[in-house]
């Protein structure tokens, strides 16, 4: 009897080897964890250079590469403090749920023509935007259950951010959908084989970058975690392992939005076939473009000041929404007059 089960299981694994690899290694669990470790380390070293300092150097003599692991051990070993006024169940649950949402988003992105975990029946982009909406709500809830003045103000500001950044960003993304006539990520990437959408969709790209900074809570749109007044926004009450999970959620969320940026505007996996293998080249080009976008956004992070809440909402509604609507009109004209460029003619 056991042999049957083992045989069935083995044949299932053989049949679904690629799927299991995708879930566990790339772009699944292992990739996400390694990216978080790399991104934190890279951000520390790169920002340190811009600030005329060295960044971590002690843990792991060469370039301080062990620093994040040391930090993680420190955070896990820390005292576990749960404030008396919180809702204990949600206080535990929400930080565990938070990294899951953006991790689902990472699985929707195509890394090569035939390398995509969930195709979502050709509605990947729609599903992405739908799932991404959950993140700010959960983030708001974490601040709410922590029941501290700083976290509650942070939670309110998270909702302001959602209003200011996400709406113009979704309208901007619709420009891409109009050009390609599809919500399918693969079709969107294939349509960029002639020209990346950063060219025809430049207005949409600008709106998207600003919205992206907002959705990932980075300077200049990081008022929900504004350190000078709110300490750490919704994360203020969290300590130890729960804080570690929230920081991880932050970086996975960042990864998801950057991957969407690469896919929609920078040609996704398009690029010269340098490895004589379309899948490996595709993954390579996605990762290279991801690194470039990371550096761009990190540089923005240290060179600009933070916007105030009212200023950010005004920016979102008075400037970004008209810009994204203009982008929509331009997209319609481009689609009408030269459909052959986008492979829909």
């Amino acid at each position: 009897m056991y042999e049957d089960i083992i045989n069935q299981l083995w044949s299932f694994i053989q049949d679904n080897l690629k799927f299991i690899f995708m879930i566990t290694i790339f772009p699944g669990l292992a990739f996400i964890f390694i990216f978080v470790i790399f991104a934190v380390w890279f951000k520390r070293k790169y920002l340190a250079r811009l600030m005329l300092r060295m960044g971590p150097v002690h843990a792991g003599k060469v370039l301080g590469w062990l620093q994040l692991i040391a930090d993680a051990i420190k955070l896990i070993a820390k005292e576990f403090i749960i404030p008396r006024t919180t809702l204990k169940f949600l206080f535990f649950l929400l930080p565990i749920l938070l990294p899951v949402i953006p991790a689902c988003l990472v699985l929707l992105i195509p890394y090569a023509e035939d390398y995509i975990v969930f195709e979502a029946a050709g509605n990947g982009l729609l599903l992405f935007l739908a799932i991404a909406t959950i993140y700010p709500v959960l983030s708001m809830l974490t601040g709410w259950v922590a029941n501290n003045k700083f976290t509650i103000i942070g939670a309110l500001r998270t909702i302001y951010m959602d209003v200011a950044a996400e709406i113009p960003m979704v309208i901007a993304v619709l420009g891409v959908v109009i050009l390609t006539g599809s919500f399918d990520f693969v079709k969107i990437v294939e349509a960029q084989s002639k020209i990346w959408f950063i060219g025809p969709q430049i207005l949409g790209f600008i709106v998207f970058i600003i919205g992206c900074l907002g959705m990932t809570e980075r300077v200049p749109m990081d008022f929900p975690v504004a350190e000078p007044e709110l300490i750490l926004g919704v994360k203020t009450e969290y300590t130890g392992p729960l804080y570690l999970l929230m920081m991880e959620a932050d970086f996975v969320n960042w990864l998801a939005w950057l991957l969407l940026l690469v896919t929609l505007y920078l040609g996704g996996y398009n690029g010269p076939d340098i490895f004589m293998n379309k899948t490996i080249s595709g993954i390579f080009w996605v990762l290279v473009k991801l690194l470039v976008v990371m550096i761009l956004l990190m540089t923005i992070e240290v060179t600009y000041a933070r916007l105030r809440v009212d200023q950010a909402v005004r920016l979102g509604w008075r400037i970004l929404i008209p810009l994204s609507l203009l982008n929509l009109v331009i997209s319609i004209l481009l689609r009408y007059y030269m459909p052959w460029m986008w492979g829909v003619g």
Partner: protein
Amino acid sequence: MSVIRVEEIEELEGGLMRVRIGPQHPISGQGTIIVTTDGEIVYEIDVDIGYSHRGIEKILENRTYLQGIVPMERMVMLDTSHVDMAYVRAIEELLGIEAPPRAQYIRTIILEMNRIISHTYALGLLAESTGWFPAFFLWTTGDREPFLELMEMLTGARWSYSFIIPGGVRADLPSGFKEKALKAIEYFRERLDVYMDAWMENALFEVRTRGVGVIPSSKAIEWGAAGPNLRASGVRYDTRKNEPYAAYGELDFKIAVETAGDAYARGAVRIQEMYISLDIIQQALENMPSGPIKVNVPQRVPPGEVYSRVESARGELGVYLVSDGTDKPYRVKISAPSFRNFFLLEMLPTIQEIKFADVPVLYMSFDPWFLDADR
């Protein structure tokens, strides 16, 4: 400046809450600012002064005049030589002596270097409060390093110099000081140009600071604004000009004045003052007279009372000194600029709508120091 009880906090009407910024807070320093807000709009700011009160005025009554310099300097660590100068000036006025010219010039150099050290820190914190903690704060902290090294070369300490004493200064300029100082001035002038380009003309920084916390000149005088905060509101007042001490009477320099009166103007005044400080140091180095660096002073100070003031980095700092003829002061009263600048922060919500996110920007643009205000 009242202490609120815990049970009071939750009982505010209209969905308001009192947020305590400090004393354990990234921006607060060694005190508490209690902000009454509905989340974004600030209705009241209450600065809870006294958390770091150390009784410096009382300590001074138990020290001889020379010993008193050291506890006096603990009042504000960033700006020690100005505090020192105010105390020494009071003692010298009571004694009726004057330091020799060379000592006056060395004092001027120290005072202006200390002003630069203090202003770089203030500007770094202003940048931090607008969201640039990392980049700009570390730039300014790194760029004041040549001046800290010069101070170490001259006085033996990077902080808390105790160098200005009644009758002169403790030591003469070491060899090679002038060349090193001129080099540092040249370097820092270039850096200031970089600050002007990269920072003061940064669009988002202007958005955050222009028109924020505007104090008209009439209100600035009424509320007793001090130092750069007063001059940023268009009032041309500087103790260095109005009542010259050290070598300021013999040197040629301008007063930095801005008219806007907002947080941006206060930052701009500080940058201009640093340019002027560099000029003053250069002039003092080039016109340095020769001669002795101190005169002998008696231990006992004749009875009498005196009020002396100097222009410290944070504004006019006054020392009221009463002597009863012994070797220790009978009473010392210090009028600290930070105390008056905190008052501006408290009064601002009465004339203008302040957002919660502006509170750190305003706090840092006034550059008050809790240790200074608490004494």
